């Protein structure tokens, strides 16, 4: 009585399960340069990826379908966490009543009010842009932006106004540049600095 024992079979089973979990963590290191974009209103990426249950309630509850489970390319630490993918749809956090935050059983997306939500930061890569790169007329991103974060200059070229961008992804979702989109939402703090306006590209900002 009181002796601690497990049978050999059980021990091997437990050791096997532990080894499998360890191997899964070792194998799935992140192979992405950038962390995934997140649903609106999280406190921090670190807290979110640690506490997220990967239950998929937010993915299911999203109005527009802009969320998807992150694949193994983001590493085991973020596996199946919800990833905001503007290529799927834009985020409508002001219209849907924050459906993902309501769906989350761990209450992880209620940290920020609507007015302060920033999902990321859109950035124009000029060489891919139809206007900047090929001189063709196109201002779909400008037309689609609800926040006035994209302005057009007198030559019809789009410029970012980073302070106004919420990262909702409408511009990326609608961009028709191929094979790669010219305007892409980057995670905050990871926005490229060259070739654009977001990081102070040196161009004068055109007024409309």
């Amino acid at each position, binding site marked *: 009585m009181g002796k601690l024992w497990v049978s050999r079979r059980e021990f091997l089973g437990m050791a096997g399960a532990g080894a499998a979990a360890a191997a899964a963590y070792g194998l799935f290191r992140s192979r992405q340069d950038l962390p995934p974009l997140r649903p609106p209103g999280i406190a921090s990426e670190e807290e979110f990826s640690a*506490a997220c*249950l990967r239950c998929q309630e937010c993915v299911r509850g999203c109005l527009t379908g802009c969320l998807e489970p992150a694949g193994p390319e983001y590493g085991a630490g973020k596996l199946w966490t919800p990833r905001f993918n503007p290529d799927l749809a834009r985020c409508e956090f002001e219209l849907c009543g924050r459906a993902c935050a309501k*769906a989350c059983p761990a209450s992880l997306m209620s940290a920020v009010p609507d007015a302060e939500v920033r999902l990321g930061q859109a950035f124009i890569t000029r060489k891919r842009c139809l206007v900047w790169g090929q001189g063709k007329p196109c201002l779909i991103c400008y037309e689609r932006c609800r926040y006035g974060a994209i302005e057009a200059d007198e030559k019809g070229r789009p410029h970012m106004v980073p302070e106004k961008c919420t990262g909702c992804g409408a511009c990326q979702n609608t961009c028709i540049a191929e094979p790669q989109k010219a305007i892409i939402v980057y995670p905050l703090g990871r926005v490229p600095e060259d070739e654009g306006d977001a990081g102070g590209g040196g161009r004068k900002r055109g007024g409309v």
Partner: protein
Amino acid sequence: MSEGRRERRVEVRRRSAVGRGMTGIRIARLSVQLALLGLFLAMAWAASYPPSGFYPDNLFLRAEPLNALTTALRGFSLAVALPALILLFLTVVSGRFFCAWICPLGTCFDLVPSLGRGKKGGLREIRPRPLQGGEGKDGGGRLRLKYLLLVLVVLLQAAGIGLLWLYDPVVIVNRAALFALSGYLPVIFLALLLLAAVYRPRFWCQELCPAGALFSAASALGKKLPEKASPLALRKEEERCIHCGRCAAACPFEITEVADTRRSGRLALADCALCGECVKACPKEGALALTSFGATLLGSGRGKAARASTEGVEAVG
């Protein structure tokens, strides 16, 4: 003590949970399990936009106390924690009933055919082991890995390393359901079903599940609670018990203490999920019973149920 050392050898015909041998308690439990699994799946399906105004679509996930505990580590809110607190309270006063009656993963384990449950109609030798006598410690006095996992998961969560998504049973099934809806493969869920199918149906629940460990620990708090105060309890009358070991052989959670203990009254066993299989298997009238506030819900050794459960017993030596 000499009696206590007596060897028992019992061979019991074991059946799959869904198959022959459907009797009152099994039908009752399976009905409750299937109804709640259906509700769980319906709520997962209904969790699409717009969110329901009448009830939280994530009620099952919120009611799972391990999730509520780690959520409370980041900021306690009574409104969010209430379902889990109610469930924990019921666990303290009755036992780990969640696992046998509510848990969607446990229900799935009970539904898969398992080699560990014995082939249908085949004979399987059950546990010839010495009668321990005395009090009979929970879990045979061994430390189960699930408690270590529970402590590890909570400590790591507090330290900023999330493992709950990998181990929480409700989350695993919820993800599996929603993955299935959107065409992804629920690999963890399928791996656990495979484990249940080729090994023992409730191995995960009894040895690994950290939520199960939390329920077990919570039920240990209410150990001293009298039978009359418990909404669901297992009662044993030691004088009527013949120590045949059929209850231990029938237990899906592989608990032997019901057979071994010399106590009478409410058996508050930390690992017991109050499924009633032991009561159904017991051939002696009045030796075992499931009770609610002192009233017998299901007694042993009466009617068809007892005859059906004893006809499979081939030899008692």
